[in-house]
């Protein structure tokens, strides 16, 4: 499995720490983090991660809008939504914005690994 550089976007510092721990435990690296959608767009340009994990509900700019802006900048960006919001309409909005995965909080290591593995197998299969 390819070693992936991942950027974590969430307005909760605890969630960023939890995601970082899980991502490192499953053998990948966190190369950047952001607590707002606007910051995520800027940090994406700097750190050029393989994958972004994106919260939806954030101050300043939400994760759906940030996803759209990142994909405008880089149409090959790979974004996984990690959110508590379980409504079907929200999942559809995220997919329409260009997200390739959707993981519901509370975060479970196995669910996140499954989502990352699925994407890694699709884009970086060796």
């Amino acid at each position, binding site marked *: 499995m390819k070693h992936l550089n991942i950027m974590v976007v969430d*307005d*909760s*510092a*605890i*969630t960023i*720490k*939890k995601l970082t*721990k899980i991502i490192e435990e499953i053998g990948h690296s966190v190369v950047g983090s952001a607590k707002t959608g606007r910051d995520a767009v800027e940090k994406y340009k700097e750190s050029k991660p393989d994958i972004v994990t994106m919260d939806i*509900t*954030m*101050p300043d700019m939400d994760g759906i809008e940030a996803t759209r802006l990142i994909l405008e900048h880089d149409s090959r960006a790979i974004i996984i939504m990690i*959110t*508590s*919001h*379980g*409504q*079907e*309409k*929200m999942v559809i*909005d995220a997919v329409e914005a260009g997200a390739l995965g959707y993981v*519901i*909080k*509370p975060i479970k290591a196995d669910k996140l690994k499954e989502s990352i593995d699925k994407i890694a197998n699709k884009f970086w299969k060796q």
Partner: protein
Amino acid sequence: MSVTMHEIIKIISQRAAKFLKDEMAIDTESHEVNLIPSNRFMLNYLTTVLTIGGDININVIFSFEHTLIRKIFEIYTEELDVLPEEEQEYIEETAGDMINIVVGNSTVEFRNREAVSLSPPIMISEAKSIAKSKHSDFFVNHLRSIHGTLSIFCIASKDTGM
């Protein structure tokens, strides 16, 4: 038929109890939803407020007793390194994460509704009393555990007909 305020607070309360049991191994005693009868009500040590927008327009409040939020924080961050100077901020973030997860997960059960949006949670520190507006309905439920009580309030304008 639309979801009612009574149903919303019931769904949120059940989800909160499940979150505390599944994620924190904290049992809560059975809960019952009531309208707040008095003109004023007291908040606990730490309170977090989140607005559900869209078709449903209500404010949801989680108000934690000190001992309970302290216990939740300890369990929620047990595998993380938290510096002493970060502790208060992280206790507040724990409360914010919990209301966000519980209410976000609850939206799956809001039947016959278009999409709803959730605001980021805001914090109110220290116990305070809140005056009840005559233009709003206030529902409350108390989840009691051996570590303390979580009071859940839902507030909606009477104009929304909920």
